[in-house]
Structures are given as C-alpha cells and as structure tokens.
C-alpha cells in the first residue's frame, strides 16, 4: 500500500523525469551525500561554538522570559547555572558531532541540543524562523544508518539506505518551500475569489515591501525600486509563488536540483535586499542540498532542465531529445 501510494506520488511529481535508479552512480552519490552530512555537522559545531559564548554572557534572566518548552527546565536552576549547562552542552556535543555523527546516539544528542539553541532566541515573546530548517535537518539525519563510512559504502543495502535516508533532508526542505508557496497561493486565490485585494495584484510586492519597511523602520537596499515602480514586482512575486509552490516536485527532477538551489538562494538574497530579512542558514542549506546535490546530473544539459520545469516544461519538449551525457563513473 505504502509502495503504491509512493509510486503514484513520485510518478506525478517526477513528470517527464522518470529516471532509472542509476545504480551505477550510487557510490558517487553516496560519497557526495556523506560529505554534505559531514559539512552539516562541522557547521553545527561552529554555530554551537559561537552560541556558547553568547549564552554564557547573556544579561537576561531565563526566569523573566517566555521560555519555549525545550527550555522549561531552566528556571529550576539559577540563571548562571542554567546558562552554563547550555554553554557546556553546546561546546561538548558540537565537538562530538564533528567526528562521531555516524552514530545515532550522537546525532540524537545534537538534535536535542540544537532544539535548545533554536528555542533560546525564540523565548523573547515571539518566534523567528531562521534556525528552524537547520534544526529539522538534524531530525532528518536521525534516519541515516549508523556505522563506519567504508563499511556503508561497500555494502549495497547500507549504501542504498543511506541515500534513501539522506533524501529525507532535501525532501523536507522542499516540502517547507511548497508549504510556504501553498499558503501564499491559497490566500491570494481566496482574496481574488472574494473580490478583495490579495497576492495576485500587480502591486502586491510593493505593498508587502512598504508594510515591512514601515513596520520596522528599516531601509532595505532595493525596496524603493519596487515601491516606486510597483509593476516591476509583479513578475517577481508571481515567479516566487511558482518556485515555492512546485518545490517538492523538484526533488524528483534531478536535472533541476542545481537550478532550484540557485533560485532559492537568490530568493533569500532578495529577502535581504528587498525586505531587510536575513536567512543565512538557508543559503547554506540550499547550497549544500541542491547546488551540490548528489543526485544532480554530473553534466548540465539545458534542454533536459527546461523540459523538467513543472507545468511549463512541455513547451520545450519538441523534436528528438539528445541523450544526456552523464559519464558513468568507474566502480
């Protein structure tokens, strides 16, 4: 039953990109995926490292804050003791993760401590979402099989399981973008159906940028361009809706992994330049999982990529298609 649902789901989302399993490339994919996970845990250690310093110097008393549930234990101790516990956990667990992440117990520890780290800046009365994705990646990586690298690499079943489990990470990130796109399109469609003002309007982006800039009295680098000429924002906004909404389909279209990675990074550069909102972790995540995707074709083929674009790919699918030149790596 699960297989049938998954196969149907995959077939629909893959569209014209119904590829074979590419078994011959699994060792290369495994090496690339393994390296990406390794980088993830090194960067996590770096983040823990800087967070340890800031939490041990915080002037805030946890007892006065609106602590989220992962930090509910803090008021049981004095401010000094609880922040010291956190700072030590960051340093020790982050360090262990650098070289022992292949073991489930260490990955669980990292996830638990990352949850604490994510909860802390969100315990000041409001929740921000810059660190959520990074935390959720630690949850995705719990599904990875444990063991030594070489043993996993040389065992076909382990290798396949590793790649399957790794795929949960890009799947979840793309799922997040699709959720974001879904809500935007849903509210815009609803507003249009009710005859009100909404996200499909030509000046919707200008309205959003003006509201954000007025709210926080910020002066984003490029916001005025759109605010003064709202029509320029229309294609950008509609394009963003599309890119986000169809994101989950990109998982099943490897020819688009790198392109979507670049587009999503450009989107986050846009949140800075147009809205003064930064998502630095998201740039790294999109770079690691999509620009460096283990599943992307080794040689970029523009026609193959254009045909793979959801909904619009059919307009490029004319004439005989040249076979993609994917060199087969030596086993």
């Amino acid at each position, binding site marked *: 039953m699960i297989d049938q649902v998954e196969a149907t789901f995959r077939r629909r989302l893959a569209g014209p990109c119904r590829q074979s399993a590419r078994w011959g490339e699994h060792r290369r994919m495994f090496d690339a995926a393994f390296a990406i996970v390794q980088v993830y845990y090194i960067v996590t250690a770096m983040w823990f490292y800087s967070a340890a310093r800031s939490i041990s110097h915080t002037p805030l008393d946890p007892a006065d804050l609106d602590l989220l549930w992962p930090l509910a234990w803090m008021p049981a101790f004095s401010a000094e003791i609880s922040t010291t516990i956190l700072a030590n956990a960051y340093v020790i667990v982050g360090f262990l993760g650098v070289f022992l992440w292949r073991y489930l117990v260490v990955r669980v520890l990292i996830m638990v401590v990352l949850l604490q780290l994510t909860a802390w800046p969100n315990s000041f009365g409001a*929740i921000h979402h810059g660190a959520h994705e990074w935390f959720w990646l630690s949850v995705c990586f719990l599904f990875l099989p444990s063991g030594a690298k070489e043993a996993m690499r040389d065992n076909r079943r382990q290798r396949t399981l590793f790649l399957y489990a790794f795929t949960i990470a890009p799947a979840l990130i793309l799922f997040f973008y699709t959720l974001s796109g879904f809500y935007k399109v849903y*509210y815009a469609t609803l507003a249009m159906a009710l005859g009100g003002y909404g996200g499909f309007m030509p000046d919707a982006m200008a309205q*959003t940028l003006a509201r954000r800039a007025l709210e926080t*009295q910020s002066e984003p680098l490029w916001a005025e361009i759109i605010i003064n000429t709202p029509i320029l924002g229309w294609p950008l906004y509609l394009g963003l809706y599309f890119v986000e909404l169809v994101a989950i389909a990109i998982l099943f279209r490897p020819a688009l992994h790198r392109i979507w990675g670049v587009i999503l990074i450009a989107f986050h550069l846009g949140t800075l330049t147009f809205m003064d909102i930064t998502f630095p972790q998201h740039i790294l995540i999109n770079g690691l999982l999509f620009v460096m995707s283990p599943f992307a074709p080794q040689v970029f083929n523009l026609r193959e990529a254009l045909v793979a674009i959801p909904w619009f790919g059919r307009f490029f699918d004319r004439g005989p298609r040249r076979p993609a030149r994917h060199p087969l790596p030596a086993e």
Partner: protein
Amino acid sequence: MPEARHKAPPRISQRHHDPSQICSHSFFGAYFAVQLAGKNFAHKGEYFPVFSWSLFSIVKNDVHDVVVEVTRVGDEIYSPPRNYYSLGEIFPAAQRRDSGVLKAARFLTVSRSDPERFAEREQEFIASFFQVDEEVDFQIMVIRFDPLERWHTGHVTERHFSTAHSTADQS
C-alpha cells in the same frame, strides 16, 4: 552497454517495509498535521518547532497593526513619541530591526481581556526588549493604513491608543 554491469538489486521497499521508510512517511504526515493545527490554534501561530512556513502569505492594502512608541527614556521625554525602531542607539532589538518586538506587542495587545495573562506577557515583553539602565515609558498604538499610501504620504487612516506601560512598574 555499460549499465549492464550494474544489475539492480530487488527493491528494498517491495521486499519489506523498511522502518526508515515507514518512519519518514509518518514523519511528513505528522509534520503536516501539526503545522496545520499550530497555524490555526496555537497563540503564537505554531507549536514550536513545527512551523507552517506561511510567511507574508496575506497581502493587504488595508492593514490593521500595532506600533510601539516610546514616550520617555530616563529624564528625556519624547513629544511626539518616538517609534521603538527609531531608537536603535538605546534598544539592541531596534538596532537589529527585530520584528519580534511587533509580534510580541501584538500578542500583548490581544491578551488585554485577561489581566493575569496580560501582566505575565507585559513582564516578558519588558524583560525581552526594554532591558536598559534607565526607566522607559512606552505605549502601544493601533493603526490602520494603506502601506503604499503611508510610504508616500505618511497618511494613516485610523490611530488609537491601546495600552501604556512603564519599566518602572516592573522593578
């Protein structure tokens, strides 16, 4: 045919359902259900850390929102009141344009009907965003505006007082 060397093994998932496969499907299903519940029922819009990723989803040209205005810092009285975000030299959250101030102010405003909850949130709000050496008086105003019109002309359709606060009351 170089591919012939790579004989595909039986599909793992067809032989038996691997635990990681079942767990990952349940994981996505559970995430979807919890984000939907959080978006509709949680007072902060999410059951942390399960977020719906509904960001800037609703676009309006008739916005009702709150503004945090500072009326006094120490001995200095601001008349007219200053927008919190214009005082970056005093408040670190204003310096980094932390939108959490507005989110927390909205939560505070909607909890006015429950005095106990209001007092608790007010204390958290002050502890989070007004930790400075001097006493601060501030007020939360509710305003209504068209963002583009307000940007170009400064016009606000409606403006009325919501709540007044002082950090002196918390000490």
